[in-house]
Every structure is written in structure tokens, then in C-alpha cells.
């Protein structure tokens, strides 16, 4: 007996070991390593409830790595070492494709890619790399077929609109007059001098509040530094358009008459925000995500009339803004499977599942009965859950909701699933709910319910057949890159100089800038870029 006990214990142990091993082998998810080019601020190590659901459904667990330093450096070293993780989410496919890092997904899509085919629909063809290389190396990020209800436009304080009896607010002239009239009445706000229009030129932010605005005010859509003629498909560096010179001339004039903040080109981001948060900046030409923080401070201080409305300001009546233009789908950034992937089929099946309706709803809405409910066939987020979603900073981290939407394949805002519900939770009602009372008052005075209604509507504007030009990868050509960098440097120097100069000098400086840009190799850059653009258009079947 005495012997049997240890023996059987041993046996039990062995059986137990084998048993757990077998069980483990069955239950252990496949761990896929993934390099993500963008940080996920709420990364949970794939341990949140949504991630667990994903693992349950696919048998895959992701081990993510993010670039804490420069993305480009990490990528270069990864390529130099020749060792890749299983999946890569890239922000510029060129170097990876050149290095042969990605496998062609075409055969996988044929065999296992039902959901992916469905999600990308007519745009699947746009995932093909180029006209010479029709392989599909990655699945594009960003919502496919997205609608926009939220526009930034040009921002004017509600106080100004109210005070002046809701004047017509369509051209830079209207804006200028409103600012002039208001400052005359109120030269100071809370004891500090009132500022008409403040710009921000801190590093790359210069593009957002200064140069992009010249395109927008002259009817162009966001194509990065390019303007593409919708008829001829010819791309030009947008600053060279004569109408944009007039926009900058207007800024020069604003500076001349003292309506432009003299610190526009020297202030740092936090100074700019502090100024806005003090309530004394009447107008901005910015994007909402950039000034949002300051507006939040204004709301917290109860200064709702000092927050901003979005107006479709253009240079003159001949232009109409294209903020709502449908950019089509570009597929510039995306997720690919690498040549080092331990199980490409499993990895692909995982990505395909992420494109399924089940996954889209799980990722956007959460878990049914926990994060949302279905009432009469309609998905509803209960009020207290919605409140947490909007106000609890740890919401994403603890619930996992929304964590795996981007950069995975993703349906756009406003698209309906087979049950008639939207895939994402963003809807016009959702935006309207967040307006303040003052904002609603101003909106109703202009006879609309949402800011976007003031803008030329999507249906009135032609679809951008070329997609978003800023998602066309820059060529790996030293001459091009060098000239491009130089041109950017010249613009960064000369445009502020021209705006701050006395009006008589404006043209001389602007001409000087154009001449310098020419010298820096504009012709070469434009030629190269147009080649790329033409290739894209041919590749997408838009031109012959």
C-alpha cells in the first residue's frame, strides 16, 4: 500500500501533466506578433474583454509592438535586420515592399477572404499595389465608405455672431468686417486686449492653420501639399495657384490693419491654447482636433459664448468649400502579413474575421447586453453606459470597446449593416447631442441644426476620383525627396515673411518664394508626382 500511494501519485502527476499539456495545446491561442506603426494609447496587452472575445472567435492573440521613438527609424532597422513580426501595420508601404517583406494576399483573399471582399467591395481593386505590381500586400486602414457630418471650416466665436445679429458669414470680407466691428466695441476681454485672428505655426502645425486654409478657402479639398485639377487631373503644388496668393494677401492685409495676432508665427502650441482658453481670440482658421483642448477649458469655465462655430468662409463668392467632398477610398496605410509569419493562413483568417459584421459590431459597439442593448431590432447604448463612454477616460481600457477598430479593416461611418443599424456609433444625432445651448441658439439663428448644413453638401460636389493625394506614397528617389524637403523649407520661411511684410512688399516676397521654389526643383517634383498620380488613375481604371 505504502508503495502504491507514491506510485499512483506519480502516475497521477504524469497523467495530469500530459493532460494539461494536451489541454493547453488545444486552448493556447496562436500568438501573432504585430508591429503597429501608430500607437494605441489604450493598449491592454490584448487582455481586455473585447480582445478575449476576439481570441475566442479566432484562436489568435496579438502581441503588439509600437514605435515609441521615430517610426521611420524603427522601420529602417527592422528592414536592415531582415527580421519581421507576423503582421505589420505600416504608414508607408514603399520600403517594406521594396524589401520584399510582405506576402501577396491575392490567393488568400480568393480562398478565405469572403468578409474582406465584402468590406472593401468595389474598392478591393484599389488595394492592388501598383499598375506594374498588381499584388495586394496589405489591407487598407480607415473606414471604407465613410460619411462626414463634422466639419471644422473657419471658426468664429459665438459671442461675435450674437453681438452682431448673426451677419452673413461667407467670405473673408464678411469675417474681417465682423472682427473689426466687434473689436471696436470690445477692445479688451476680461482686461486683456482682444485678438482678431490668431494663427499657429509651431512646427508642422503651420500646415494645418496656415497653408491648408489657403486651399480650403479657394475651394480645394485636402490633398496635402497638392492641388489636383478635377478636369485634367493635373497636380500642382497648391501654393503656386494665383488664387492662394490672394488668400495670403488677405492675411497680409489683416496683419496690416492689426486684426492678426502679432504672435501668430512665434507662439508655441501651449501659448496658443492658453490664448484661446482666455476667451479673447475671436476667430481661428484651424482644425477642431487642434483647438479642442482649449474649447474644453472654456466649457469647463462656463464661457460657452467664447467657444466657436464653424463657417464656410471662402476667399470670394466665386468659390465654394469642399470640406464635405467624398474622397473615395485610398488605401495608403494598412496591415500586411510578412514573409516571416509563422502561420499565414491563420493570420489571414484572423484579419478576415476582423472584417466580418460580427467583428465590426463587436469592435464598435462592444458586447451585447454589456455595452449596448438591442431593443426592437435597434442597437442602443443605455444612457449611463453612454455617459461612461463619453466621460470616463478609462472606458476604452477597461472595456476594450473601440480599441481594435483602427488600424484593422473597418467600415465607414453611416454605413448600415443587414439589420439596418449603423456599423459605427457616430451618427448626426450623436454629434448634435454634444452641442451646447449657446451653439444651438446660434445654429438656429442661421436656420440650421448642424454646422455641416452651412457647407456645400456632399451631393453637390463631385466625388474625388483620385482619392486622397496625401496617401500617395512619396517615391524612394533621393532627388525628389531632397527637392521636396527644400520646397517645404522655403514655404515655411517665405509665407510668414510675406504675411508680416508691409502690403507693398507682399508681391515681391511672394514672387521671390515662387522663384526659389522653381530653383529648388519644382518642375522635377511636379513631373514625378504627376506620373504617380497618372499611374494611380490608370490603375484604378479612372483614365485609360
Amino acid at each position, binding site marked *: 500500500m505504502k508503495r502504491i500511494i507514491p506510485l499512483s501519485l506519480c502516475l497521477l502527476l504524469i497523467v495530469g501533466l500530459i493532460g494539461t499539456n494536451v489541454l493547453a495545446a488545444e486552448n493556447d491561442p496562436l500568438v501573432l506578433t504585430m508591429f503597429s506603426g501608430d500607437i494605441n494609447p489604450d493598449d491592454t496587452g490584448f487582455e481586455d474583454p473585447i480582445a478575449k472575445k476576439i481570441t475566442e472567435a479566432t484562436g489568435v492573440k496579438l502581441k503588439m509592438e509600437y514605435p515609441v521613438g521615430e517610426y521611420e527609424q524603427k522601420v529602417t532597422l527592422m528592414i536592415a*535586420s531582415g527580421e519581421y513580426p507576423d503582421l505589420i501595420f505600416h504608414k508607408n508601404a514603399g520600403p517594406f515592399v521594396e524589401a520584399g517583406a510582405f506576402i501577396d494576399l491575392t490567393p488568400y483573399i480568393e480562398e478565405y477572404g469572403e468578409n474582406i471582399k465584402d468590406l472593401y467591395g468595389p474598392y478591393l481593386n484599389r488595394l492592388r499595389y501598383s499598375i506594374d505590381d498588381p499584388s495586394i500586400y496589405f489591407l487598407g486602414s480607415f*473606414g471604407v465608405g465613410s460619411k462626414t457630418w463634422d466639419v471644422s471650416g473657419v471658426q468664429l466665436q459665438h459671442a461675435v455672431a450674437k453681438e452682431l445679429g448673426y451677419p452673413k458669414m461667407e467670405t473673408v470680407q464678411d469675417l474681417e468686417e465682423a472682427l473689426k466691428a466687434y473689436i471696436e466695441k470690445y477692445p479688451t476681454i476680461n482686461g486683456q486686449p482682444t485678438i482678431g485672428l490668431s494663427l499657429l505655426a509651431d512646427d508642422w502645425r503651420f500646415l494645418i492653420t496656415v497653408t491648408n486654409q489657403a486651399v480650403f478657402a479657394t475651394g480645394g479639398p485636402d490633398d496635402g501639399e497638392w492641388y489636383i485639377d478635377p478636369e485634367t487631373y493635373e497636380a500642382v503644388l497648391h501654393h503656386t495657384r494665383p488664387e492662394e496668393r490672394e488668400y495670403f494677401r488677405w492675411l497680409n492685409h489683416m496683419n496690416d490693419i492689426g486684426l492678426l495676432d502679432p504672435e501668430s508665427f512665434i507662439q508655441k502650441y501651449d501659448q496658443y491654447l492658453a490664448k484661446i482658453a482666455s476667451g479673447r481670440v475671436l476667430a481661428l482658421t484651424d482644425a477642431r482636433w487642434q483647438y479642442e483642448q482649449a474649447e474644453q477649458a472654456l466649457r469647463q469655465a462656463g464661457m460657452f459664448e467664447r467657444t466657436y462655430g464653424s463657417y464656410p468662409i471662402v476667399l470670394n463668392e466665386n468659390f465654394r468649400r469642399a470640406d464635405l467632398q467624398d474622397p473615395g477610398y485610398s488605401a495608403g496605410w494598412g496591415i500586411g502579413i510578412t514573409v516571416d509569419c509563422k502561420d499565414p493562413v491563420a493570420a489571414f483568417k484572423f484579419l478576415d474575421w476582423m472584417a466580418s459584421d460580427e467583428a465590426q459590431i463587436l469592435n464598435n459597439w462592444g458586447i451585447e447586453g454589456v455595452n449596448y442593448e438591442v431593443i426592437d431590432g435597434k442597437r442602443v447604448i443605455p444612457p449611463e453606459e453612454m455617459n461612461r463612454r463619453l466621460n470616463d477616460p478609462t472606458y476604452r481600457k477597461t472595456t476594450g470597446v473601440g480599441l481594435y477598430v483602427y488600424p484593422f479593416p473597418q467600415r465607414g461611418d453611416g454605413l448600415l449593416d443587414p439589420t439596418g443599424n449603423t456599423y459605427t456609433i457616430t451618427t448626426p444625432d450623436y454629434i448634435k447631442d454634444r452641442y451646447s445651448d449657446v451653439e444651438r441658439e446660434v445654429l438656429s439663428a442661421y436656420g440650421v441644426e448642424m454646422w455641416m448644413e452651412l457647407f456645400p453638401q456632399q451631393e453637390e460636389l463631385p466625388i474625388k476620383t483620385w482619392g486622397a493625394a496625401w496617401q500617395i506614397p512619396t517615391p524612394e528617389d533621393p532627388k525628389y525627396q531632397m527637392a521636396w524637403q527644400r520646397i517645404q523649407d522655403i514655404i515655411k520661411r517665405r509665407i510668414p515673411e510675406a504675411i508680416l511684410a508691409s502690403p507693398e512688399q507682399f508681391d515681391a516676397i511672394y514672387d521671390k518664394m515662387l522663384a526659389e521654389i522653381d530653383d529648388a526643383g519644382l518642375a522635377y517634383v511636379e513631373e514625378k508626382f504627376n506620373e504617380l498620380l497618372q499611374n494611380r488613375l490608370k490603375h484604378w481604371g479612372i483614365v485609360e
Partner: protein
Amino acid sequence: MVTNRTWGDRVFNVFLYVFMIFMAAITLYPFLNVLAISFNDSVDSVRGGIHLWPRQFTLNNYREVFTYPTLVRGFYISSLRTIIGTALGVLSSAMVAYVISCEEFIARKFVSGLFILTLYFSGGLIPEFMLVRKLGLMNNFWVYILPGLIGGWNVFVLRAYIDTLPVNLKESAKLDGANDLTIFFRIILPLCKPVLATVALFIAVGQWNSWFDTFLYASSNPDLTTLQYEMMRIMQNTAMSSTASMYGLTAANAPRISPESIRMTITVVATLPIVAVYPFLQKYFVKGLTLGAIKG
């Protein structure tokens, strides 16, 4: 004559103390300012105008930073690399410095040239990365210690100090039959305490503050990331979530702590431990310790 001197001395003293109080004030300000903002409500901080005292006191910024579970381990790794890296670094640099201060050493010029030149060139990021990979140091703790073991700058600072020590100390020890190793450990090191403390401080601060080597060589091993690296990550996460709406990624995202507030908080959390080292090292900055000890 005598009264004249004391009068001059007194004026000098007044000037000296006024000047030093002024210096302390202007150098203390930024840190107090950072401290004040780190304890101020983040939304309110956007309005600016906070100097030495928070306007709306809160611990939320610290709460946000400390939600990251990786912080404790980061602190441990950072401390470990600082202690080991400093101990080994100081010892190695001092040894090299001693060797190249020996006039009679035949390879003196060669060795000192070898080290001084390293100050002015580097092979660059890619070859250094490849070397670390070839040596199997990727995701290995020693990658924090070995590649940067000796700094040329420190070697020559130490050597300058050793050069000021009287030569006859060494000569007499030699006559007593001591070899160079004994001289180095028994005579040179004890005499060099102030400069060793200085070099230790330089190395420790460098070790503590570095995050780039983690990014390059150890970022895929979560057990090896350092405090500074984790701080960089928190900083980026905050900055990212505030620009994320740029892509419309976080329509349903709650307002967060602003990147500026997080930056201040991180500065406090990450620098207080290392800043606290200096006062302890100051006890080695004692005059007369050197030669007096020998003569006695």
C-alpha cells in the same frame, strides 16, 4: 590696510550672497513651475498663468501616470542599470585614465588616442544596431551596460585630475615595491574621490535618462523596458489620443488629461529619484581630503 581688506571682504560677501540667492531663485523656478502644473487640473492648466502654486489642485495627473502597471518594473530596471552601469563605468574609466596618465607606459599615446577619437565620430545607427545583434545583446540586460561602458569624456576628466596629483606619491610607492594595480586601487582611487563622485554623477544621470537604447534594442521585451522609456510611451499615448480625432478615430473617446500636464507630471516622476542623488554625492566634495590624508 587690515581694515581695508575686511571692508572689501564684507562687500564681497554681501555681493556673493545676493548673487547666490538670485541664482538659486532663477534656477529653482522652472522646477517649482513644473511641480505646480503637475498638481493642477489639466483642463484648467490650458489657460496658462500658473507659476509657483497650483490654481485647481488635483492628483489626477499622477493618477493617470500611475495607471500604467509597467512603471514599477521600469523603475526597477532603471535603478539596476544605473547602479551597475555607474559602478562598472566609473571603475573602467578610472582604470583607463590611470593607465594613460603613466608617462612611462609605452602604449600611452596609442591608448589615449584610441579613446579621445571616439568622442568625435560614430559609425552611425545602423552599424551599431547590427553589431549589437551580432553580439546577441538584443533584448538582453547587458545592452544597457556594455556598449556605453566607457565615455571618452569621463576618461579625460579623470586623467586631468590624476595629472594634478603629485608624482612623488607614485614614485615612493613604486620604491616600496607596489605594482600599478596596487597603486591604482590603494593610492589613486582614494585620492580621486571628488572627481570620481563627479564622473559617477555624469554616468548615473546618463544611465537614468536614456531611453533610446531601450527603443532600439529591447522594446520587444516588456521585462526590460526602463522608466524613461515607459515615460516616453505615456507621453506619446497622451499626445496620440489628443490628435487621434484627426483621423476620426476616437469619436467616442472621453476627454483626457492634456499632453502638457502629463509632460510636467512625468518630469517630476522621472527626475526626482536622480536629482536626489547629488546631495548624497556632495559629501565627497570635501576640501583638503586629498593631500591632507596622505601627509597625515
